[in-house]
């Protein structure tokens, strides 16, 4: 058993109510269709909600520090993965390679030749070719 029996049930109901208010904001905010508002209300609030659940429901603040370090390390690894893979995944060409299928799909999308229905172009991700071939 752990060390947080001092909280009454009402404390957790209150946290749940706060989470629902944040959920409502994160749902309504993006309807304004302003990019920075969407970023803050949808993703910023997601981080706040996750923090509230981790601290108040999972009681991560009451676990030994090495547990927090372990969880944080996995998050850092995730960011490293993103930083390592993004330059390849998110670009259509590099110094010695190019993704012709992606460039063609991008052109078709810009020209309105493909739509965003169920079956659209895939932008040729993962179909890179060495430049000059």
């Amino acid at each position, binding site marked *: *058993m*752990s060390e*947080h*029996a001092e*909280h009454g*049930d009402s404390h*957790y*109901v209150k*946290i*749940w109510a706060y*989470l*629902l208010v944040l*959920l409502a904001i*994160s*749902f309504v905010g*993006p309807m304004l269709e302003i990019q920075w508002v*969407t970023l803050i209300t*949808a*993703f910023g609030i*997601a981080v706040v*909600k*996750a923090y509230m*659940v*981790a601290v*108040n*429901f*999972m009681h991560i603040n009451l*676990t*030994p520090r*090495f*547990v927090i370090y*372990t*969880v944080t*390390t*996995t*998050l850092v*690894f*995730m960011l490293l*993965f*993103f930083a390592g*893979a*993004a330059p390849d*995944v*998110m*670009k259509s060409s590099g110094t010695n390679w190019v993704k012709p299928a992606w460039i063609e*799909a*991008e052109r078709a*999308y810009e020209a309105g030749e*493909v*739509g*965003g*229905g*169920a*079956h*659209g*172009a*895939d*932008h040729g*991700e993962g179909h890179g070719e060495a430049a000059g071939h």
Partner: protein
Amino acid sequence: MSARPIATTRSAAGIPTQRLAVWWIIASEIVIFGGVLGSYIMHRLAHGIWADYAANTNPWIGLTNTFILLTSSLFAVLAHQAAERGDGKRAANLLYLTCLGGAMFLCVKGYEWSYEISHGMTITANTFWSFYYTAAGIHALHVIAGCIIMLFVAETAKKNLELHRVEIIGIYWHFVDVVWIFLFPLLYIAK
């Protein structure tokens, strides 16, 4: 001699072994979900057309499922509180309510997927839908696993036995909730 393995009862690391184990599971799960969501974000940012695909998802369904999971998390933490007070029967009942939340979540998801699949938005339609079904599908498998384990935990808790397990399954369930908190804006909100 007790049949219980010695590792179950010791807390050499300053934390009960079961609780430490579930945190290790969560750490490894972060890498699994982080990899999928990180890859999704990369592609989403790189391909403008993905916003058009995402416009086909129903935000009201995402909202409903987020509400259901947050509420089930409340029941899970209240079950933990009941277990702390030694009230196994109340803990078990609250765990059953948590499971009910999980079942409702899966029903809503089943309805949503059947609609999408019947309209041609299948896992093989394009990479966006592959990511969509993979991320939400892995998450749904975790919901199913959590519900099954929770039913076993509730059975013993009802008899006022092994009440520490209520906290352990609760931590796992809250993590499943946290994952959905990030899936919700990624798949349903950011159009």
